[in-house]
């Protein structure tokens, strides 16, 4: 199989431009972030931050400063509220399983939206299937906005946890998350409110201490930081239990010794995202709209998935190309140097396409032909123009292969 993949990579030789837009799944790390991390791999702070020697103290300093920075960017009261985890997945697991463990005798109802990322969805399902919880899914409208009325109805005395992503990772819907948290706490002040904020961090501003949000997940690579790093904001008085056991260094809720270089990289990536924030976000919005409008106007039989305009994450582009299978299209685009992902069942290794697209009412065929892209501050107008140049012919070629099949 390794030989096969070498051939696949070779098939990409001689590309005149490469544009990576699959930030949803992974991302390259810019040079400035690398340079911030490097000393912590080799010459500084490579010790255990809980120990009394110089490399440990250097690690402690770096971790504290990083936590302070990140706390500031999300309006947390203090850096102790930041728990670093190996990623978004682990932070979501800690939020949901840790809360369920803490309140296991208080109630057995959990409430999520229909369009949560799989790490939230699958934990909620696990709690229902194996631990006697009732998991209620709040429906969303055609743009992915959660139904606040329904949320109000559902949250009751039995509800230990509500988890709703502030910004949907796939279709970019920005939820009224503050209101959602207010509603939940009005219904039951003891319900813990969690949000996966991975797609909001660095893209929309939030001041968590001014909200009723108790737990919020952050992810490093989604803002061009290194993989292997995420965080869970845990509001000071929120009770939670750790879900794994082991050596405790400076943190209480995730065992093991902190990964100083990656924490420093995450903080540096945050700094780069929040410096001249408005300007950067305006750049994202402009490229996003250029890409959306270019694709919708040049290619027929397309559907934008998720909201238009202000309710949409500034970086998110998700379009369904009808009569066009998504995985085939990602390969065709890859051979032209454009790297994207698809909500197709094929890409997901399941018969079902993205549950998120289905939840906003897309037919299966529409979901199979969806392509997800995210622009970053490092993308240029030329990048978008290149994507717009190669996209129509890629879609055309795949549609030619499909021919009359799907309309038969």
């Amino acid at each position, binding site marked *: 199989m390794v030989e096969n993949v070498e051939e696949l990579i070779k098939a990409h030789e001689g590309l005149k431009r490469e544009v990576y837009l699959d930030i949803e799944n992974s991302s390259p790390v810019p040079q400035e972030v690398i340079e911030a991390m490097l000393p912590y791999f080799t010459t500084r702070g490579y010790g255990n931050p809980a120990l009394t020697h110089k490399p440990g103290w250097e690690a402690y300093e770096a971790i504290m400063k990083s936590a302070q920075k990140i706390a500031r960017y999300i309006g947390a009261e203090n850096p102790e509220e930041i728990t670093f985890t190996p990623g978004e997945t682990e932070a979501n697991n800690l939020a949901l399983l840790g809360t369920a463990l803490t309140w296991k005798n208080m109630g057995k109802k959990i409430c999520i939206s229909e369009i949560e990322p799989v790490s939230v969805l699958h934990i909620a399902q696990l709690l229902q299937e194996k631990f006697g919880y009732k998991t209620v899914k709040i429906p969303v409208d055609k743009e992915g906005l959660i139904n606040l009325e329904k949320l109000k109805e559902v949250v009751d005395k039995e509800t230990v946890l509500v988890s709703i992503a502030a910004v949907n990772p796939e279709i970019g819907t920005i939820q009224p998350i503050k209101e959602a948290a207010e509603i939940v706490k009005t219904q039951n002040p003891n319900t813990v409110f969690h949000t996966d904020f991975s797609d909001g961090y660095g893209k929309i501003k939030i001041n968590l201490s001014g909200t009723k949000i108790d737990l919020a997940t952050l992810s490093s690579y989604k803002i061009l930081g290194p993989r292997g790093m995420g965080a869970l904001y845990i509001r000071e008085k929120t009770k939670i239990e750790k879900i794994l056991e082991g050596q405790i260094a400076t943190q209480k809720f995730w065992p093991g010794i902190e990964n100083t270089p990656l924490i420093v990289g995450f903080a540096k990536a945050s700094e780069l995202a929040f410096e001249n924030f408005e300007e950067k976000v305006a750049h994202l919005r402009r490229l996003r709209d250029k890409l959306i409008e270019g694709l919708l106007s040049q290619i027929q039989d397309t559907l934008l998935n998720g909201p238009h305009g202000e309710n949409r994450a500034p970086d998110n582009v998700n379009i369904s190309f009808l009569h066009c299978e998504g995985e*085939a299209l990602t390969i065709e685009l890859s051979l032209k140097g454009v790297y994207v992902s698809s909500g197709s069942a094929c890409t997901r290794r399941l018969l079902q396409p993205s549950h998120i697209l289905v939840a906003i009412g897309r037919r299966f065929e529409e979901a199979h032909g969806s392509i997800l892209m995210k622009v970053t501050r490092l993308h240029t107008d030329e990048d978008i123009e290149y994507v717009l140049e190669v996209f129509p012919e890629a879609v055309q070629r795949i549609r030619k*292969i499909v021919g009359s099949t799907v309309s038969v």
Partner: protein
Amino acid sequence: MSRMPLPYNPKVLELFRNPKNLGKMEDATVWAVAGNPMCGDMITFYLKINKEEIIEKASFESYGCAANIATSSILTEMIKNKKLELAWKITWKQVTDEIGGLPSIKFHCGILAVGALRRAIRKYFKEKGDKPSWLPQDLTFEEKQALEEEELAKRLAKRIGGQE
């Protein structure tokens, strides 16, 4: 297996890029479909069959991934100028081997391609009102699998809610 063996081999990529025998055949003797757009996997096979029951031309259209496209394409090559009886006997395993192997999660692509071909052959004899002795009464493995995938897609769609 803990690691999803995903990468296609070079032959799949080559046929994905330059598929042979692609497109609707206007003068087809018979055509058949397998799969369902709901599961993102669908193949149409067109056959031109002469009086000696030899496949003179075969072509395909495919709504599916690269493996789907490549297996359909190679199967059209494999059956060209073959007698229907011989074409019928080609198994999904032979198709997969011919293409140089597939990741296990893509086996169903080869199965679907063979399913579509066999449907077309059955349809040909049905329309002719004639059943040769080598043609089994019962559905073969590949045909059953195609049917199952189609039904699974419908059930899933129904469960998820009101999809056609």
